[in-house]
């Protein structure tokens, strides 16, 4: 029996490769502090993966590094080791590992962890991003879409709505930067986003609309907070969008063929 190579770990490795430009620029701008934060988050996630391998026989995944990068980049600043570990543990365990590991999760573990940290410790400041890091999201998205590991329709939907928002003057630069990075790291996750083409277009557009809505009417919210909240809601809506897209697809086939 011959086998291809698109296993879960291949996809995780390709995702990591796609995120490399983003990670490189962020580490370059952030220096040792950023590296320390990434190491700490990766360590906590690694420990949980080890625990679930020993107790539940769930093989660990390279996707842990993708999650670690997303959390380390977007988590509120100066949380301290204990709070950060608590948030990461909640996100990774409740968002991913209890469902059976990466590939069977319903929401992105990084989104859950960031939402937990944001709502749990509201006094800490969210990070801001400089232009070079934000621009690095472009090659990341490009590589991911070209390799087929990031859903092209979702990215296109979000970029389309974002472009409309910019044209209408509703999105400032900091919000745009944060939204772009969150789009690449959290929303476009192939597992937790919608899985049908129509669902992906709507999922991306929904994320864009939520970002515009929050940026316009949520006073006092930091750009990353806006983007992460939009990502959480868009991710929760993904199964519903898929269900609607499938119902539409089935109805169209019924009309054309009289059966599915």
């Amino acid at each position: 029996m011959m086998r291809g190579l698109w296993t879960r770990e291949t996809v995780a490795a390709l995702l990591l490769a796609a995120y490399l430009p983003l990670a490189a620029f962020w580490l370059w701008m952030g220096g040792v502090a950023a590296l320390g934060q990434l190491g700490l988050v990766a360590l906590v996630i690694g420990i949980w993966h080890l625990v679930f391998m020993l107790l539940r026989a769930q093989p660990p995944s390279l996707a842990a590094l993708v999650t670690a990068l997303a959390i380390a980049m977007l988590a509120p600043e100066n949380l301290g080791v204990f709070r950060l570990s608590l948030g990461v543990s909640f996100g990774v365990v409740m968002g991913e590992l209890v469902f059976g590991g990466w590939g069977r999760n319903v929401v992105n573990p990084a989104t859950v962890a960031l939402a937990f940290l944001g709502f749990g410790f509201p006094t800490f400041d969210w990070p801001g991003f400089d232009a070079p890091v934000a621009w690095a999201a472009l090659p990341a998205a490009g590589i991911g879409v070209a390799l087929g590991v990031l859903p092209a329709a979702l990215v296109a939907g979000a970029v389309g709505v974002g472009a409309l928002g910019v044209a209408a003057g509703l999105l400032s630069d900091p919000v745009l930067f944060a939204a772009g990075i969150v789009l690449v790291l959290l929303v476009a996750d192939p597992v937790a986003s919608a899985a049908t083409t129509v669902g992906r277009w709507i999922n991306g557009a929904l994320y864009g609309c939520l970002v515009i809505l929050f940026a316009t009417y949520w006073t006092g919210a930091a750009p990353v907070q806006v983007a992460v909240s939009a990502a959480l809601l868009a991710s929760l809506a993904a199964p519903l969008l898929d269900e609607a897209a499938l119902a539409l697809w089935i109805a169209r086939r019924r009309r054309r063929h009289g059966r599915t």
Partner: protein
Amino acid sequence: MAFLSTGAGLNPEFQSPLEVSGTTDVITEEAALCPPVGPAVRVTPLVQEDEVVARGSAVACLRHNPEICFTAPIAGRVARITLQPGRLLSEIVLFRDDGAGVETHDPKLAETDAGLRRLMQSAGVWPWLRRRPFGGMPAQGETPSAILVMAADTRPLSPDPVEALGGREEDLARGFGALARLTNGPVVFCTHGDAAPWRSFASGRIQIAERGTRHPQASAGICVHGLCPAGLDTPVWDIHAEDVAALGTLLRTGILPMNRLVRIAGAGLREARRLRTHPGADLRQLTRRIAAPGAHVILSGSPLDGHAAHWLAPRHRQVTVLPRYEAPRRQHWLVSALTETAGAGPAIPTAALTQAFGAVLPAAPFIRALEAGDDETAMNLGLLSLLEEDVALADYVLCHGGQLMAQLRAMLDRIRREYAA
């Protein structure tokens, strides 16, 4: 979106040496009558061991449908009849004996519709038909809602079916006429590339469908899914175009030609070959002088969906020879227990997965329904049109090692049991 979907599919590359030009006719010294791939068939042997049989004469019939016969692929002496418990056909081996002659049928029988069916069933054409849903050959009196004639094959290393049809246009047209009498629905001729030579066939219920060159665009199940989906009460048949031409010859001369174009390819060969041989041919004889030194495994079928076999399976038209690699060393039991108990791992929805289904159905929800055993969703997404060979590419791409095909078969069997009850 039409321009996006025309290029859908993948072309996985498998190594194979250069092909020697020219096509030779080969009748192997031994041949076997094997059951069609799919559900097992219960048979009653019509011959004894050591009996001499003519090519095309009936050697076994279905136990509960004695009108449907399996016929001898070569003229010869019956060497061995192997049945499994419950009279399940395993194989009937013949030794070649050219003096035994050829069986001739009465083509006048086909003047009525019932006579045509009877002729096809007694001459051994019936097992070349395959029905969907569930696979296997159709029941005796079944009327399909459509018939697909496959003159396209996108599986890696497959022969070009159009090449097998050269000079047989008249017989093909006659075969089409016969097929159109078996159904009230369309008879669709699926071909890829230039469909111009076949335009003359398109008339009335006979239609032409052009398919792309990437796999699985010309996989029969994907074509059925796109053109005329199969349902529990609306079976769809498919048959290879070369077999339709053979049916045309049978109607013209009364003799069913057994030869078919077969391609032998794969990394375990010194040179690839194309030849005309018969179903049930001895694969060891066919590959003896062209196999590369060293251990190898011979598959009947493509590298994606083929199975290790001694004989060429009834509907197969390609033989794949692969080097046999040593099984990898077993991991420590603790590592296996921690990492391998979860099975093949979840399928991540990527572009590769979508393309592995030719972008004709929502791949990720379909795979999830298969894994979860959600019959209803899978049926809504087109499960009943598909068989193992149609998901073979997705199985290969995802590195599932046959698990996806096994899940599909298990689900189809479960639905059939529930439907029959």
